[in-house]
């Protein structure tokens, strides 16, 4: 299994509070991704990174920001959480980009 961890694994927060989710990899892969999974929508890309300090938006990036200061860590921040951001968040990594990605175990976020 690819070495990917996500923290926290579960979080309950209140509307309007900032939240940061962390993805950590030990594979030294160049590409890292953040997805959210919601019923009826499958996996939707939020942001991705193609190198340290190099990031780009996905299809559902509004309300989210990311940072990657080290190869191994990719942070997802909800600046002011809303109930619509209640979801399961997955981090993924890829050595060459696209094609085969390896996913972390997910973070279940509930925004009250």
């Amino acid at each position: 299994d690819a070495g990917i961890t996500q923290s926290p694994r579960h979080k309950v927060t209140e509307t309007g509070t900032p939240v940061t989710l962390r993805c950590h990899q030990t594979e030294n892969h160049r590409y890292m991704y953040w997805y959210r999974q919601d019923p009826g929508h499958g996996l939707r890309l939020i942001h991705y990174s193609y190198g340290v300090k190099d990031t780009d938006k996905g299809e559902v990036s509004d309300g989210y920001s990311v940072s990657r200061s080290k190869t191994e860590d990719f942070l997802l921040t909800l600046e002011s959480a809303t109930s619509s951001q209640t979801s399961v968040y997955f981090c993924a990594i890829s050595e060459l980009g696209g094609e085969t990605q390896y996913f972390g175990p997910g973070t279940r976020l509930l925004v009250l």
Partner: protein
Amino acid sequence: DQQVKQNSPSLSVQEGRISILNCDYTNSMFDYFLWYKKYPAEGPTFLISISSIKDKNEDGRFTVFLNKSAKHLSLHIVPSQPGDSAVYFCAAYSVQGAQKLVFGQGTRLTINP
């Protein structure tokens, strides 16, 4: 605009029979197609892929078929086993596009004893 679609949210199959999961796409620029499998409370795991230059790829009990003219792919599982019960996502990737996968909505497969 949903570029990759899985129109069946769920599928129920008897153990030992064939499971067929379907996926349609709209972007003719996709070069690779992948299937991922997801168990509850776990991340998706890669299952099998196919290049757009092929029409079939087989790996054990799993076979993926690609029909480019119809922009359709399918995953066949033969014979189906209880451990195959999971959510299956198809995904597509364009080499010339950004380095990212586009996923379908997923199909929940249930294998009945």
